[in-house]
């Protein structure tokens, strides 16, 4: 179901966590709230869930004003960064919790728990306690628990933030597949731009309690609206007042139209990709991203003088 956030503001003491936020999340979409820590993304998510009350503005879920509603009345599923597992309950009991407080018949609960265990691939671990699970398993349990009550919207607060890189990659691919299967309206908070770009249809980039830009992963990368978006989403070199992506710079041995000289300082080989770190004659650093083949053709060496020219650069007023 859709989510509408209108003119929402929230302060903690003198700290402005959210400053006049307006946002539309469409039914069935997967939206990422992306931003550095302290940008207000988690606070916004918690306001949607009812775990925080905004100081001003309103929040609508499926067109219904829920600003004053308690969390248990909102029909949301919430997944916490640190799992918030019910430590004294088994995996099955954790997943069944939402159904049990709704007093559903035992038969229905058992059947639903069985389905969810299969969905999150935790069959056979139903009788374990959370302390006996790995971090990735615990978070899958957290997801199953949130999905058990068929929430209208699924809210995830840095769900993979506490996991190691490999498990994180696996789980976010799995989350995307899950969403493609169920089409539950989903909002995920993350500080990892790669994660946001990989899973989301729509990215909301936040900074200092404000929304910097809303758009698809490609939009944000290719048409950044502000300096902040340019530097936060993807890499960027600052050349004078301009910004240029490291793969938008050409290197050549001979000067070309508009090129300038720079010295190769270091070559970093990252498998397929090579990072060439350069110093311009005014002393500023610059780096260029190219494929291994391109670097091999140029036969680059440290201390070598090359000619650089930017293919695309952007200026922000």
């Amino acid at each position, binding site marked *: 179901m859709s989510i509408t956030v209108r003119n929402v503001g929230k302060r903690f003491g003198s700290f402005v966590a959210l400053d006049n936020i307006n946002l539309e999340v469409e039914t069935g979409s997967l939206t990422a709230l992306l931003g550095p820590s302290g940008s207000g993304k988690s606070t916004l998510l918690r306001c949607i*869930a*009812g*775990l925080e009350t905004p100081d001003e503005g309103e929040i609508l879920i499926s067109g219904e004003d829920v600003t004053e509603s*308690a*969390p*248990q009345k*909102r029909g*949301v*599923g*919430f997944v*916490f960064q*640190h799992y*918030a*597992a*019910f*430590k*004294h309950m088994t995996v099955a009991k954790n997943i069944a*919790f*939402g159904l049990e*407080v*709704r007093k559903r018949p035992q038969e229905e609960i058992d059947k639903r728990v069985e389905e969810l265990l299969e969905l999150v691939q935790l069959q056979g671990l139903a009788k374990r*306690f959370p302390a006996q699970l790995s971090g990735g398993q615990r978070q899958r349990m957290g997801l199953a*628990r*949130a999905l*058990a*009550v068929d929430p209208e919207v699924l809210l995830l607060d840095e769900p993979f933030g506490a996991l190691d890189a490999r498990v994180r990659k696996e789980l976010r691919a799995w989350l995307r597949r899950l969403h493609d299967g169920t089409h539950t309206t989903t909002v995920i908070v993350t500080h990892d731009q790669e994660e946001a770009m990989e899973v989301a249809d729509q990215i909301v980039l936040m900074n200092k309690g404000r929304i910097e830009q809303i758009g698809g992963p490609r939009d944000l990368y290719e048409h950044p609206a502000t300096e902040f978006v340019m530097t936060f989403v993807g890499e960027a070199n600052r050349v004078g007042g301009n910004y240029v992506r490291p793969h938008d710079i050409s290197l050549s041995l001979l000067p070309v139209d508009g090129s300038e000289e720079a010295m190769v300082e270091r070559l970093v080989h990252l498998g397929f990709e090579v990072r060439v770190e350069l110093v311009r004659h005014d002393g500023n650093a610059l780096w260029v991203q190219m494929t291994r083949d391109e670097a091999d053709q140029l036969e680059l060496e440290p201390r070598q003088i090359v000619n650089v020219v930017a293919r695309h650069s952007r200026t922000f007023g």
Partner: protein
Amino acid sequence: MRSKLSLRLVALCYLAVVLVGPVVMVFYRAFESGVGDFWRAISDGQAAHALWLTVLIALIAVPLNTIFGVALSLAIVRRKFPGKGLVNAFVDLPLALSPVVVGLALLLLYGRQGWLGPWFLDHGVQVVYALPAMVLATIFVSLPFVVREVVPVLREIGDEQEQAASTLGANGWQTFRRITLPAIRWGVAYGVVLTAARSLGEFGAVNVVSGRIQGKTETATLYIDAAYLDFNQKGAYAVSVVLALISVVILVAMSIFKPKEETA
């Protein structure tokens, strides 16, 4: 190795001298002339009544302090309200204040000349020199224990589990009963044990407000004191042993009921 050993020896000696020795002596003297004598001493009308009164007061004070203590702990940890720091500090007052002073204060408030005493008397309730004041005194002196055990546990578990429960549709009471209470149950249990131990052993405040009427307002500790001064040492030792045994039973029950999942 040697220093570790001698440290252990010092600790054991200390325990033996201040703790085990006296308790063993009481047991020894109580059973010196046989179990029959012991049994006669505690089944004496006055002694039995004193023991019953002590148990009765604990049965009223402990549940009240448990409910109040858990509620107050939740307020201190989970809520924001003006004067919270003051409340938090006041909880410790009974630990710092001499029980005799507590007794005197109750006397001043509920006595014949006190602020509230006459009102209660007009409504036919005798507070001082009767059960109500003894229960009040016991509640006062044993009030901090549940709060002091539960507050750190609540802080440690945090409120994420409670938030998760609320997003899953649980109301306040369901969240408390199914999530918070199971998570703090061992803190509550230790608090109850300490509250019970303190209630059973209370002497100073009850001494002041009870009037020490034999067979009526005399608790076990008051009986022990009176019997000892009255050269009825057998009675004093026997009742002491019963109080000590009740404490042991509570402690043993605690360790038996402790579930396996937490020791694993």
